[in-house]
Structure formats: structure tokens, C-alpha cells
């Protein structure tokens, strides 16, 4: 295992080039679609749906009033912004205030998202070199993250970039056995999105895989070996800290620590295994051929299975849990959750790199065409279908 992974100039140029060109492309496409190339016009057209919720969230934080502003939908159905986790809006609010409010809230969010995304790319590159020792894969990963499908979510005021950054850093520090740093990133991740808390299971999978290197698993040896690693124990215990701190805030403000769960009622009518069965049956029988969300659901399962076959169990854990938790209520947002999952993009890169050169180019071209059509769909207001 490499002791130190440094980012060379060539890599920095590649990351910045991909980042700048992809953002310029999104900007121009938005401007072209609406015949409005002004910065404010493009920003307003891009920041839809959840971005509007985050804006209300940021305004409440700035005013130190938990209930002052609400999204317009909040009035009838019981939708409320406490369904969204607070770290990202808090950071946007801080950035917005310390820059003297010279940028709009949306632009502040987009700048923060972009910074997080760039950090995520650096750590993604380091992680791939650490685990795969393949620079080509690392560059392809950066390229697909910048230009690939659903790249829009890493640009606008959504939590995707911050979650991606913290997840990538957590994976990197886990592999480097820097458990306290991993714990800090994990704690911040569980304050960014609820599924962040499940990183605990990624750590367990990694430890079990390490323990099983000789083909045998001994529970007593597993416990005695790992309980001695004090930094590991504390690192694991730190991961849920973000979630539980948010729960404490909800207890104080609403008297309900699970308010972020209960508020889901306003968005989704039902959830459970029966709903998952109905969704799969609907995709494969009633609504055959399946729509884009259903195709991505099955595609994600295949990618998770491919990682399991490759022995990358720890990389398969979080997408599996996220996919399950999301799909027991609805397939909506699954593409966004999966693409922001880091290891799913890695699985795609692993699969592409196992192909011949011509097939690789063909698959990457398909991805780019798909990415453009997704972006157009977003701009035409099909956000909930993506």
C-alpha cells in the first residue's frame, strides 16, 4: 500500500479542465435552452425542486428562526424542510454571510458545491490509486463524474457534492486506517444526509473482509483484534454523531427526534417490502418495458453485484443499503442517490475498463449522450422523473 499519494500537476490540470469544461457546457446548454445567457438567469433555471427547499432552510438559519420561512408546498401536505439534513444549508448560510451577501443564496450554494466536488475528485483520484493503482481508471472516473449522467446535481444547490466529498474522504481514510479522520468525515456525512450513518456498515464490511483474508472467519478473533484498536472504536462511534445531534435539535424544536422520518409521510404515501414488490412487479410486468427510473434501479443492482463478484464488498454495502431504503417507498431519486454514491461510479469505471478499447469509447459515448438528454430533461422541468 502506498504511504503517500501525491497529486501531480497533470492530474490537477485534468481535474480542473474536466470541471471547467463540463460546467461551461451546462451553462451554455441552459442559456441556449432558455435564450438567456445571464448568470442570474442560468442560476435560477438550474436550481429547481430541492434547491428551493434549501433556500428556505438557509434563510431560516440566517434569521436564527427555525420556522420563519417555509417552502410554498409546506402549507397543505405537511411538507417541511426538516426532512433535509442541516450541514449543507448551514455551510451555505455561513458562506453567504461571510462573503457579505455579494452572491445570491443559490450562487453561494453552487460555489460551495463546486469546491466540495473538486475536493471529492482529488480524494477519488487518491482512493483509486490506493485501491486499484490505475491512473487511467482515476482519470476516467474524474471524466465521468464531470461529464457523465446526473452531473447537474454536483453543480447546483443540492447536497450531492458535499455528500460525495465526505463519502470519498471517509473511504480513503478507512483504507489508510486513519480512523479518527474517517470518524470526523463520517460524522459530517451523517449530518449531510441520513444514509451517511450507514457508513458504519461499510467499516464493518472492511474489517470482516480483512479478518477473512485467509478464508476463515472467527468472531472471537474479530472482536479481540479490533476492540484493541482504540482509534477504530472511537472512529466507528463518531460516524452517527451528525445524525444524533440533528435528532437532538429536532427534539428541542419539535419534540420529535424522528421528525425527519415522520415528515416523509407528506412526500410518500406508503413504504415497506410490499411497496418494493409492487414497484418491481410494475416495472417488469404491468409497465413493461420499464421506464428510466426502473431501468436505473436494475442497472444499480447489477453494478452492486459486479462489485461483490470483484470482492469489493465494502464498496457494495452503502449503495445496497441506500438502494433498499429508497426503493421500499419509491424509485424516484434513485439515480441521484446512486450516482452520488461514489462506489457506483467506481463500479461503472471498473466495468468500462474491463472492455476493449473500441467498446470503451462506445460505452463512454453512450454515457455522454445519456448525460446530455438527462440535462435537457432537467431544464425542461422533468426533475422528478430523473
Amino acid at each position: 500500500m502506498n504511504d503517500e499519494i501525491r497529486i501531480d500537476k497533470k492530474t490537477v490540470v485534468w481535474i480542473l479542465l474536466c470541471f471547467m469544461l463540463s460546467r461551461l457546457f451546462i451553462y451554455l446548454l441552459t442559456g441556449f435552452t432558455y435564450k438567456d445567457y445571464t448568470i442570474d438567469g442560468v442560476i435560477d433555471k438550474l436550481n429547481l425542486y430541492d434547491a428551493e427547499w434549501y433556500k428556505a432552510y438557509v434563510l431560516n438559519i440566517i434569521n436564527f428562526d427555525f420556522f420563519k420561512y417555509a417552502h410554498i408546498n409546506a402549507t397543505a401536505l405537511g411538507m417541511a424542510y426538516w426532512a433535509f439534513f442541516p450541514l449543507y444549508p448551514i455551510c451555505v448560510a455561513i458562506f453567504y454571510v461571510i462573503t457579505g451577501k455579494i452572491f445570491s443564496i443559490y450562487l453561494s450554494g453552487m460555489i460551495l458545491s463546486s469546491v466540495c466536488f473538486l475536493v471529492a475528485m482529488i480524494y477519488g483520484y487518491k482512493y483509486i490509486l490506493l485501491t486499484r493503482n490505475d491512473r487511467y481508471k482515476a482519470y476516467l472516473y474524474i471524466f465521468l463524474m464531470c461529464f457523465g449522467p446526473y452531473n447537474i446535481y454536483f453543480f447546483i444547490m443540492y447536497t450531492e457534492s458535499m455528500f460525495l466529498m465526505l463519502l470519498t474522504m471517509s473511504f480513503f481514510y478507512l483504507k489508510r486506517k486513519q480512523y479518527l479522520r474517517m470518524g470526523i468525515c463520517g460524522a459530517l456525512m451523517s449530518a449531510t444526509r441520513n444514509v451517511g450513518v450507514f457508513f458504519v456498515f461499510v467499516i464493518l464490511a472492511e474489517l470482516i473482509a480483512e479478518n477473512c483474508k485467509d478464508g476463515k472467519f472467527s468472531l472471537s478473533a474479530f472482536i479481540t483484534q479490533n476492540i484493541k484498536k482504540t482509534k477504530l472504536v472511537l472512529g466507528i462511534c463518531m460516524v452517527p454523531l451528525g445524525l444524533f445531534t440533528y435528532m437532538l435539535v429536532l427534539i428541542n424544536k419539535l419534540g420529535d427526534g424522528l421528525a425527519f422520518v415522520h415528515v416523509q409521510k407528506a412526500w410518500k404515501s406508503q413504504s415497506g417490502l410490499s411497496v418494493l414488490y409492487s414497484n418491481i412487479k410494475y416495472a417488469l410486468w404491468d409497465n413493461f418495458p420499464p421506464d428510466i427510473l426502473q431501468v436505473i434501479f436494475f442497472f444499480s443492482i447489477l453494478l452492486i453485484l459486479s462489485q461483490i463478484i470483484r470482492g469489493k464488498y465494502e464498496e457494495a454495502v452503502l449503495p445496497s443499503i441506500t438502494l433498499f431504503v429508497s426503493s421500499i417507498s419509491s424509485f424516484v431519486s434513485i439515480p441521484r442517490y446512486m450516482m452520488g454514491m461514489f462506489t457506483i461510479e467506481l463500479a461503472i469505471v471498473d466495468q468500462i475498463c474491463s472492455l476493449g478499447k473500441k467498446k470503451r469509447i462506445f460505452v463512454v459515448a453512450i454515457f455522454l449522450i445519456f448525460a446530455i438528454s438527462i440535462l435537457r430533461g432537467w431544464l425542461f422541468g422533468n426533475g422528478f422523473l430523473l
Partner: protein
Amino acid sequence: MILKHYKMKKLINNIILYFLAIVLVLFYVIVLIKSFDYSSTSSEYKAYYIDGTSAHYSPVGEGK
């Protein structure tokens, strides 16, 4: 002597880390228990989100 000092320092360090881990676990247990106590929740909130006895609810202006 240096080795003994090093071992002592390591032991104290480990005790602090274990202590912090225990404090965190206790914090989680307390928050979890308090999460299922709805005594301070407003009646409208409880009726809509938790009991399901109300069909409409507006979170605007909510708060204990």
C-alpha cells in the same frame, strides 16, 4: 525509563479514547430514548405525523 513513559502515555491516550467512545454511545442512547417520548410534541403535529388521525397539517409557525 523512556519505554515505561511511552507505555504510560499510550495507556492514558487509550483510556481517553475509550472514554470518549462510551460518552458518544451514552449520548446516542439518551437521544434515542428521548426520540420516542412525544410528551412535548404539539397536539396538531402528533395527530398528523405520528397518530395519523388528522388529514391536514401546516408546519408553518410550528414549534413547541
